[in-house]
């Protein structure tokens, strides 16, 4: 029997992928393990390999097509094998309205000479819009362009409920934005687009609150300077923070959990994400079980992860399962900022640059080095006290590394 190649699940949260390009042609001989297709997910792109030796046939999908997890991409047939009957996608949802049967019982069907009904409607941005008849009618009635509705059905199919949800989200009156001539239009990369959807969802669904604290950083800076000459590669600020934060999170399960349907999901593993800026947008790879890694293990690991992130070489496992995120914009000279939680995580820590500030101590002003730490917390799972305690414990570690022993 022919071997089916399907869109794989590449992480807990993955639902769909976009085809970047096929690396082989229809009918080409492939070997098991050979890369045949490049796809984009919401985090990064990666290659899909042939599942068997043979001829790869019935390639489905073209560059830019979005397919859900589990969709058939192709079949690999060994000599003598045949491709099974392909399941039909749902037929034209663009059927012209047909009058119901009149007295003669003959429906007023279009004759074959009439124009063929298009298989699907292309929206302006080129994506095919699949929507149920009820959804289309509701969208038309509401004045919402159907392409603006994101569908919850298979292949992004839009259902009535999706359209109705839009009604509750959209403002009652949408004024036409003033038309400005754009210098040029840039399509968003998949990473940005999905990032946009995620952050929009997080920002609207998750009740954020923010705790800011200037962390005393003298010891941190000293450690960095000392290790600079002692370790190769030398640790960065981010790596030391991962070390400190991951250890601290052990004692703060609320912040290492997630909100799920009215319950707090607690995670034993501390899987810390670090925010990495890439040419296509922000990616947040995961350092699994970060709290169990020694500095010697952590440093090369994080550096490698960051490099591969920038080169879009991550494996799916490296993009899923995160329980907490650290975002460091200190190297960009940002003093402080409030980050948006990577839902469904419970919290995110935003770190600013090292600043020297005056502190009044023993009758005089003394310079102190600090970094701003802003903790964004999902108020459904933790409150201010939880966050404050975490920051206090973190500060203890940053001031006194011996506490980690």
């Amino acid at each position, binding site marked *: 029997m022919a071997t089916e190649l399907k869109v794989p699940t590449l992480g807990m949260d993955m639902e769909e992928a976009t085809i970047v390009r096929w690396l082989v042609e229809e009918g080409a001989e492939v070997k098991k393990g050979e890369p045949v297709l490049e796809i984009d997910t919401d985090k990064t792109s990666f290659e899909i390999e042939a599942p068997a030796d043979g001829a790869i046939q019935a390639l489905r999908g073209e560059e830019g097509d979005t*397919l859900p997890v589990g969709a058939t991409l192709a079949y690999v047939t060994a000599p003598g094998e045949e491709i099974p009957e392909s399941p039909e996608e749902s037929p034209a949802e663009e059927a012209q309205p047909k009058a119901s049967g009149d007295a003669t019982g003959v*429906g007023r069907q279009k004759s074959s000479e009439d124009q063929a009904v298009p298989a699907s409607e292309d929206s302006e941005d080129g994506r095919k819009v699949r929507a*149920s008849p009820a959804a289309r009618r509701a969208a038309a009635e509401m004045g919402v362009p159907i392409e603006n509705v994101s569908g919850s059905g*298979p292949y992004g199919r839009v259902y009535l409920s999706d359209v109705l949800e839009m009604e509750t989200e959209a403002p009652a009156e949408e004024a036409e934005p003033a038309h400005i001539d754009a210098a040029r239009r840039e399509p968003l990369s998949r990473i940005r687009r999905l990032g946009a959807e995620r952050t929009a969802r997080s920002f609207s669904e998750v009740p954020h609150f923010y705790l800011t604290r200037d962390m005393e950083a003298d010891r941190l800076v000293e450690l960095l300077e000392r290790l600079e000459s002692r370790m190769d590669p030398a640790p960065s600020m981010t790596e030391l923070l991962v070390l400190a934060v991951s250890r601290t999170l052990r004692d703060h399960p609320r912040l290492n959990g997630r909100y799920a349907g009215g319950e707090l999901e607690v995670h034993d593993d501390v899987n810390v994400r670090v925010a990495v800026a890439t040419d296509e947008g922000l990616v947040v790879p995961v350092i699994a079980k970060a709290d169990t890694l020694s500095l010697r293990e952590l440093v090369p690991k994080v550096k490698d992860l960051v490099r591969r992130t920038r080169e879009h070489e991550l494996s799916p496992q490296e993009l899923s399962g995160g329980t907490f995120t650290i975002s460091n914009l200190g190297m960009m000279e940002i003093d402080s900022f409030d980050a948006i939680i990577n839902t469904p995580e419970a919290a995110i820590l935003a770190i600013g640059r090292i600043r020297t500030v005056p502190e009044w101590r023993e009758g005089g002003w003394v310079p102190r080095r600090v970094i701003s730490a802003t903790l964004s917390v999902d108020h459904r799972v933790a409150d201010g006290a939880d966050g404050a305690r975490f920051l206090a414990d973190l500060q203890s570690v940053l001031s006194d590394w011996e506490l980690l022993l």
Partner: protein
Amino acid sequence: MPREITYREAVREAMVQAMREDDSVFLMGEDVGVYGGAFGVSRGMVEEFGEDRVVDSPLSEAGFVGLCVGAALMGMRPIAEIQFSDFITHSMDQLVNQAAKLRYMFGGAGRVPIVVRTPGGAGTGAAAQHSQSLEAWFIHVPGLKVVMPSTPYDAKGLLRAALDDPNPVIFYEHKLLYNRKGDVPEEPYRVPLGEAAVSRKGEDVTLVATGLVHRYALEAADSLADEGIEAEVLDLRTLSPMDHEAVARSIRKTGKLVVVEEDVKTAGWGAEVVARIVEGESFYALDRAPARVAGADVPIPYNKNLEAYVRPSPEKVVEAVRSLLDTRVGIYSEVYS
């Protein structure tokens, strides 16, 4: 005043009450006399009405159905009982070429008020030639009416209404419904032909069924309710003329259609239900593709498990509804595609 009787008794009661009121009503079929009918439906009747009105016929479906057609043309009201609905094939000319068409061909002169009663359906291990559901053949013949009651109440009411009807009516009973009990008033009453009934109200999906599998739809609806899905169940009761408006009303509410039918899927009566919804205004109320849970396109096999495998069941209906609501691609369960 309602009391509980069986479907079989309800059918008998309709015939007996009609025969008491109208001399021109008579029953003719194989073994309907002293034997009481192969399924016991006419038990006791020959004793009350005599052999001229409860007539044992030789094994001549063409002959006695044709005779009933002629008697009907002369103003009598015959009930022809075909012992197993599969044997209706012997009488096809009499029903299709004669009974259905005489009035039309004669330009409106003459009527053929014959009722053909026959038990159909599977589930009894009687195998391929004694288990069929061929009602779709007859809804396709203009001039005939086709009725398939699901409950004892409807069986009595619809049979009485069929006997009143001046047209030829094929009245499908089900072997597995004969023992089912239900509330049935003692006095004579009619249930109008051509009207569906809403047997369960719901908002989430419309299940259209009739006959034995109407029960399956109700059972499925109960299971689905446990998952928070409220199904609306429509009992069509009459297959021709079909109450498409009732289906349309329900679809406007739920947007989702699942037909549950015992006959084989290909060109079964469910196809007509779906076609009417899709080709009409109701298309714009559909939020999912319509689905049919039907018999597999095979003759009915003998082995009990094989038989169950090719027939609809409440579980298959539940699965079909779940598939309809599932948002994952390609998850359309193969309920006899």
